């Protein structure tokens, strides 16, 4: 192999063909509200932890749907479960259980 001083950049593209439907069905059984997100971003805007770090339920849900489970857990892992997002969600998503379920189903146990 020759070092050209550059190499092939990895693709940033989401390949939805890799979507793990079984796992997602497990999640939607654990918290059916996951299906209701309309991506408005209220949760992220109100997030207590979000002031300090990249916490976002919206992005966590999207990351799961976009086959990036690791990112989903990262977006959920800094959640303090304070529940503000539950109050601001226009779709009344049970956000806390959703966040817990995401870490439960997609995260590694500590």
């Amino acid at each position, binding site marked *: *192999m*020759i070092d*050209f*001083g*550059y*190499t*092939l*950049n*990895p*693709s940033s593209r989401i390949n939805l063909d890799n979507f793990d439907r079984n796992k997602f069905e497990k999640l939607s059984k654990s918290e059916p509200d996951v299906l209701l997100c309309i991506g408005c971003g209220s949760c992220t805007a109100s997030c207590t932890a979000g002031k300090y770090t990249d916490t976002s339920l919206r992005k966590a849900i999207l990351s799961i749907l976009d086959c990036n489970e690791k990112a989903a857990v990262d977006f959920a892992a800094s959640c303090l479960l304070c529940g503000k997002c539950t109050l601001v969600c226009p779709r009344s998503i049970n956000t806390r259980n959703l966040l817990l379920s995401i870490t439960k189903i997609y995260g590694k146990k500590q």
Partner: protein
Amino acid sequence: MIYEGKKKIWSEYQKDIPDDHYFYARSCIRQMFFTASEQAFLEITRKLMGKDIFETEHHTTCGGIAYHCDAIPQETSMTIIARQFALMKKYGYENFVCSCITSFGLYNETLETWRRFPEVEAKVKEDLWESCHLEFAKPKFLAHTCDLIYKYRERIASMAKYRLVNVKTGRPLRVVEHIGCHYSKMFPSKGFGGAEYPYVLVGMVESWGGEIIDYPERRHCCGFGFRQYFIQSDRGYSLANTYKKFESMEPYEPDMIITNCPGCTYFMDRWQYVIAETQGKTYGGKGHGIPVLTYEEVAGLVLGYDPWDLGLQTHQVGSEPLLDKMGIKYDPAKKYLGVNGKFIGEPEKSPC
């Protein structure tokens, strides 16, 4: 794939260009790397077809690469282009044909800018006079050299010595056609067949007996991308683009790639080697790579020119397997012999 649907689209994108009397402008890249292609164009049009294609040593680059790299402003490139057109007028031509897709795109862009913003045209006119003392002119017809070959495709087919057919199996060769982005993506109506399913190369391949492959990433850029290539730290993106294309076409087992753009020929050819070196992946049968040819080279092969006269030895990917498939005779010993049998040097063998 519904072929009739495509035909319908093709019928909607047919442009009207004359088939003779052109002022010819060369391509910076092609005259460096694929010199024989431009020569083949002149040979075919002038000698075989008997057309009047005029060329002058006074013409220059269009400035496209510098423009697309943000190295020069649009005003500069427009003035350069105005000078080219002025030369055309000066030598008594009103049709302009260029060998480069980047130029073709930029000429179109410039003409469209002038059409929409007459004050810009007036300014350029002034600048041209101030700098060159040349009379401003706009071509009546603007064409790319592939448009002309496309126009002559049936005549070439009638004179053909070889066809794009595998002589051993009798099957048409599977050909990937790659159109330079600036041919019709900016102005779909300026290209034969429009932007989605450009017909210009498809028409040639069909006339000469080949079979077109429609692979998912056919629209994708070859990866040149100007800044992506010229800035070394971004070169990985350029490479990734090409890689994506090859990954997409690989399952169709293409026998060759035909392109109409200088950059595309260069990058689809050279990057195959870099992909092999960095990713350990080679395409084409037996890891030979997929030969990437210009349309003039393909026309030349079909017409029976000697492959080495067409400059196929200057390609990174060897064209011998393709020549064998087409049943073209060639002398391997003469591959690296230039004009008057002078040795032009030989690439190092890859250590692996």
